[in-house]
């Protein structure tokens, strides 16, 4: 019986080994596993695994606003290389709350910088980040192949994601300044006017409140910079009032927990020519914004 049982296990191994080998080959060829439903987040995490970050003093996080508008070179020049931008498309404040819970413990930053706009307050949390966060840190960082099996996704989808999904080109500090030529600007995106507030906005304010309180508890300074919005977005009295009330709300929440609130929604400095859609600044606009932020933070970041 023992011999037969051994033979059976041996044959199982014969069938299992090529499957593991196949996934290892895919991994080595750059067909990374699907971890969350954000292509960019998965890509950034895979970059972080390949080029580990050593406890950045300033940890930036946010959505595409933080990703595109914080100029890494300016940040590094003024505050030293101890900086990393963890921003990824579509992150909501609630997502930042859950991600920071892990990142702050892992990287122990002194400052957390969020460059935000109203788009960070309009959607529900993305639960798929939990697939990343709920995985043991050691496995996550040393055996990312594990994600091929956890929350399994087919090889067909993995291949399609590699070749079809658009991703940003990160600089070494995780930023991705972007310049779009005026002729290439998408008019629909340019004229878009996101509905704000939405039914999720209140939840996002609660998450901002919880984030501020938690960072204070962790002795991490919270810096919240309100990013510029294109002038034409606030062309009616009502939309102006809505935006102003959003700014007041964010300011009161951030300052209530001892955080630093900065507001750069200035249509005189940030004219429409510096944008490529309703909220996003071109690289040139991002450089101006980062310079403004750096000037303001010089007295704060020691």
């Amino acid at each position, binding site marked *: 019986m023992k011999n*037969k*049982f051994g033979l059976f296990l041996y*044959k199982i191994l014969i069938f299992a080994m090529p*499957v593991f080998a196949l996934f290892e080959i895919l991994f080595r060829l750059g067909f990374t596993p699907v971890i969350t439903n954000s292509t960019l987040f998965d890509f950034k995490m895979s970059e972080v695994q390949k080029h580990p970050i050593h406890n950045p003093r300033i940890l930036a996080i946010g959505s595409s606003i933080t990703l595109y508008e914080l100029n890494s070179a300016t940040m590094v020049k003024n505050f030293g290389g101890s900086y990393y931008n963890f921003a990824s498309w579509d992150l909501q404040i609630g997502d930042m709350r859950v991600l920071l819970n892990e990142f702050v413990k892992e990287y122990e930053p002194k400052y957390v910088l969020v460059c935000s706009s109203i788009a960070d307050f309009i959607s529900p949390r993305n639960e798929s980040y939990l697939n990343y966060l709920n995985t043991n840190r050691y496995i996550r960082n040393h055996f990312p192949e594990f994600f091929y099996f956890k929350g399994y996704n*087919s090889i067909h989808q993995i291949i399609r994601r590699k070749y079809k999904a658009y991703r940003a080109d990160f600089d070494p500090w995780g930023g991705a300044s972007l310049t779009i030529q005026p002729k290439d600007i998408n008019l629909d995106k340019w004229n878009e006017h996101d509905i704000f507030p939405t039914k999720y906005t209140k939840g996002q304010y609660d998450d901002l409140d919880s984030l501020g309180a938690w960072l204070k508890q962790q002795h991490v300074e919270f810096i919240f910079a309100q990013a510029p919005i294109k002038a034409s977005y606030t062309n009616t009295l009502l939309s102006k009032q809505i935006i102003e009330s959003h700014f007041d709300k964010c300011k009161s929440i951030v300052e209530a927990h001892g955080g630093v609130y900065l507001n750069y929604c200035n249509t005189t400095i940030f004219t429409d020519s510096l944008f490529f859609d309703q909220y996003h600044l071109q690289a040139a606009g991002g450089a101006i914004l980062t310079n403004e932020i750096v000037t303001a933070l010089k007295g704060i970041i020691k």
Partner: protein
Amino acid sequence: MLFNSIPFALFFSLFFLSYWVLFDKHLTLQNLLILAGSYLFYAWWDPRFLLLLFGSSLLNYFLGLAIHRSGKEKTRNFLLGVGLVQGLGCLAFFKYFNFFIQSFISAFSALRIRSDITTLNIILPLGISFYTFRTLSYLLDIKRRKIEPTRDWIVFLSYVSFFPCIISGPIDRPETLIPQLEKRRVFNYGQASDGMRQILWGLFKKIIIADNCAVFTSGTFDHYTALPASALLAGIFLYTIQIYADFSGYSDMAIGLSSLLGFKITRNFNFPFFAQNIADFWRRWHISLTSWLTDYVFTPLAIYFRDYGKAGLIAAILINFTAIGIWHGPNLTFVLFGFLHGCYYIPLILRGEMNKKEKMRKDRLLPTPAAFGKMAGTFTLVMFTFVIFRADTLSQAFSYYGSLFSPSLFSRFAITEKVNTLVTLACIVLMLLAEWFQRDKQHALQIDFITQFPFRALIYFGLILIILFFSPTINADFIYFKF
């Protein structure tokens, strides 16, 4: 812990090694491991209902012994009654309570009587329909002196909670499983290999066919008002395939897992799409439930109504199939689904062909045109009833039928997941062909006639690669989990 998930793979690997390596020589320890593993597997979903499973099993264990020991018919009837009230009572409470209350409220409001009855937020314990039917058949068989009760409580509790089958069956009878639990199992290489093949076939059906079909069918049923009739027709065709691949895939995995542990459990499907009439279909579809109801509901009813000739038989069939419908859940859609299938029997009963078995010659490469016509006809009849089965309400089902019969039956519709859809259609053809050529076997992957191992291995690797390459984004729950 779905069978096709990482936690289950880890759980079963550890279980399998402990079962055959550590406890190989100790029957009691092996059974204790089955019991502990089954309770862990069950508690993984919701530990709150473990107590219900344990309590219900323990009560039925003692009732079984008491019925057997009692000499008086009256006492035996009383004890059986206690068991039936407990089993059916739990089932009625957890599964049907809110349905009855809502029906009362609707009836009262139709009569313009104000009712202040409130429904309760009752969660359905997983697998309750399946394990209750096991305990009921145990007591009924002891009462009929068909079997003797087991004295070993570990064996009985393991029989009720046997993890490969507790959530969605097959509903094993006591005479099938209990003797196997009482006897020392020896590792059988042939049985284990066959089990692995059946698991692989089940995974293929579940992941590639059922889950890929689900992507299309859930979209179709959710947005049927906005879709052309051609998409709706494709939707019900694929749903019929999906429910078969999902449930028979689960059953294949359950049987395969049992084989790995040295058990031979009840077959649940016998290639139902090759049935040539509705009676033949139900002899091949969810066999363990159909045969259970045939033994404990239909046969007693048929005897009771025997003086009424064919009308009595029709009444017995209609009641039996309505019971099959109700077993699925507290919804009028299931009641109508069952009743309709009962109605399909009427022409067979009137022609005296209900028990006539159509023989399929094993040596024929293809079915005869007449046989093929009958198969297609039976498939179509069944397919149309699955609209009712899938719909949330009767009005949704009728609305779906309404939308189905419109001029847009011949218009084109958009498919989002083109590659997966094409692969799924190809795999459906592959499944049907494999099952046709293997129709005299227990499952389609019993390919021992291919004597060279490398050729068999090629087929296994082919299936593994299809599964790895073309599974859909979302692994859906097994459809029968909710029953």
